[in-house]
């Protein structure tokens, strides 16, 4: 346990000494500005639109931060051959990986909490200025939404780490992770939209399962991040919008994270440095 603690501490130390704080400040500023502006554009539900846009900013900003941290803590290590030092200790390499994973997790989750708190305060402020017909749910529904966002982040961190330990260039981490997140987040809504809009594809009316089968295969390769986005329960304060199979959804996603991390450890142990 003490062994991994020093790794976590080391990871946090590297992150703090990189440009972490200025990036965090920019992300928080982006959150505040876009939330305040978005509320101005809504005629009847400013607090809902503000919360909605705020959650979107969190969903876009935190993966970006995670990618930068993984580049800093993993790719840079290989690039500058620091591993010559860190891998010489007589212990398993998995400590090194899991320690730094925990460090990124701590930073990402704290920022999620900070941004979530700021967003809640902003939404409360906007909601007090204009009483809506359907108020936002900033209590338990909001906490559940943030919890599901944390699970989504966990997937992003694991895939970024796997790419970092297997790739030789840091930019592959950026491109690979963004591509992965984009597809994992959009494939279920896209299937839904195609089903709702039969004009999109001509053959669709003849065979409504046309895309379900081929795109459904994706579900075996990628976690369903689109359904992890449960913000509607907070936007409209209606818990019925929570997917009824949420324990299964969470279980599947956590299993996927475990698989990615073990794969990362395996790849790192096999990797030959020269």
């Amino acid at each position, binding site marked *: 346990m003490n062994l991994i603690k020093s790794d976590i501490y080391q990871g946090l130390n590297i992150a703090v000494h990189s440009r972490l704080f200025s990036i965090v400040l920019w992300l928080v500023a982006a959150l505040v500005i876009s939330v305040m502006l*978005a509320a101005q*554009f*809504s*005629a*009847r*539900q400013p607090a*809902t*639109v503000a919360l*909605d*846009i705020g*959650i*979107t900013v969190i*969903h*876009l900003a935190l993966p970006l931060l995670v990618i930068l941290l993984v580049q800093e803590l993993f790719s840079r290590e290989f690039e500058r051959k620091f591993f010559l030092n860190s891998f010489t200790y007589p212990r398993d390499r998995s400590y090194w990986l899991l320690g730094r994973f925990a460090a990124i997790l701590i930073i990402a989750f704290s920022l999620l909490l900070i941004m979530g708190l700021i967003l809640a305060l902003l939404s409360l402020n906007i909601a007090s200025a204009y009483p*809506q*017909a*359907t108020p936002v749910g900033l209590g338990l529904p909001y906490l559940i939404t943030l919890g599901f966002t944390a699970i989504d982040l966990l997937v992003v961190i694991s895939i970024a780490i796997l790419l970092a330990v297997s790739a030789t260039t840091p930019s592959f981490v950026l491109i690979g992770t963004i591509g992965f*997140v*984009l*597809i*994992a*987040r*959009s*494939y279920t*809504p*896209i299937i839904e*939209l*195609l089903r*709702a*809009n039969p004009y*999109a594809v001509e053959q669709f009316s003849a065979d409504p399962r046309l895309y379900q089968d081929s795109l459904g295969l994706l579900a075996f390769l990628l976690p369903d*991040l*689109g359904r992890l*986005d449960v*913000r*509607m329960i907070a*936007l*409209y304060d*209606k818990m*019925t919008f929570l997917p009824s199979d949420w324990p299964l959804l969470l279980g599947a996603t956590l299993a996927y994270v475990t698989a990615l991390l073990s794969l990362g450890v395996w790849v790192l142990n096999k990797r030959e440095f020269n």
Partner: protein
Amino acid sequence: MPRWFAPALALAAAALFWVAVALQGALDIQREERPPAIITAGPVQLLLYGGDRFLGANIESIRAAASVTANDAENFRLRAHLAVSRLNPCHEDNYWIGNASLTWGGAEEQGFSILHNAMYCRYWDEWPAFFYGFNQQFFLHNVPEARRMLEIAAQRSPANAAAFRNFSIMLAAGEIDDVRLAIEMLLREREQTTDTKLREMLNKRVVRLRGLLVLRDAQAAFETRFGQRLSRPEELLERGLLEAFPDDPLRLGYEFRDQTFHLTKLTIQ
């Protein structure tokens, strides 16, 4: 080659470029009045917005609201409101503004589909159901369907249930002056909003409906005075019941069919 040649050529070429840009009118401020013409399909939008359907819905709804007063933006608004309605059918601004701007702007079928989606997604909200029912009566004269929707609205709102049921009974008895009621509804919506562009948009629709009211009142006066059905709208001018036909600020106008005046529908390109 002299030393001044390269910088002079650069300057000259840049000047040429700026002249060409100015000639194209790219800096012309009037261009901003034009509505944005491109609406991408829902699935493509999703990829563009990082797989975030809520972001797509918000951006499209803001774009639609920003072009709310331009007359020639109708076709753009149509597609934008429909896109939001697919990306996030629960979006409150979208069904509210979409109903006011599309349904009362000559595109009632698109208005119906937006209200329909909103009614199913917002299962607690009485207003999409009420608007849907009212529009069924106003545009399609479908009283049974209108009453069914009003009953749904009544079940959703204990506070307004009595008013909705009362309205439903009056519909069945045929005692509703729907044009006056529609004007009142739009005026009330106008009172509730603080946005000047939205107020202007609602104003135009009120003026349009008032024009319809003038025509229908003139027809009623004609028929009681002369004891015969109006066969041509021009008769109202010839017999001195109207000085001129009313102007429609939306430039869609009115039409005379089945011996009554109606709002003209928007032709969709």
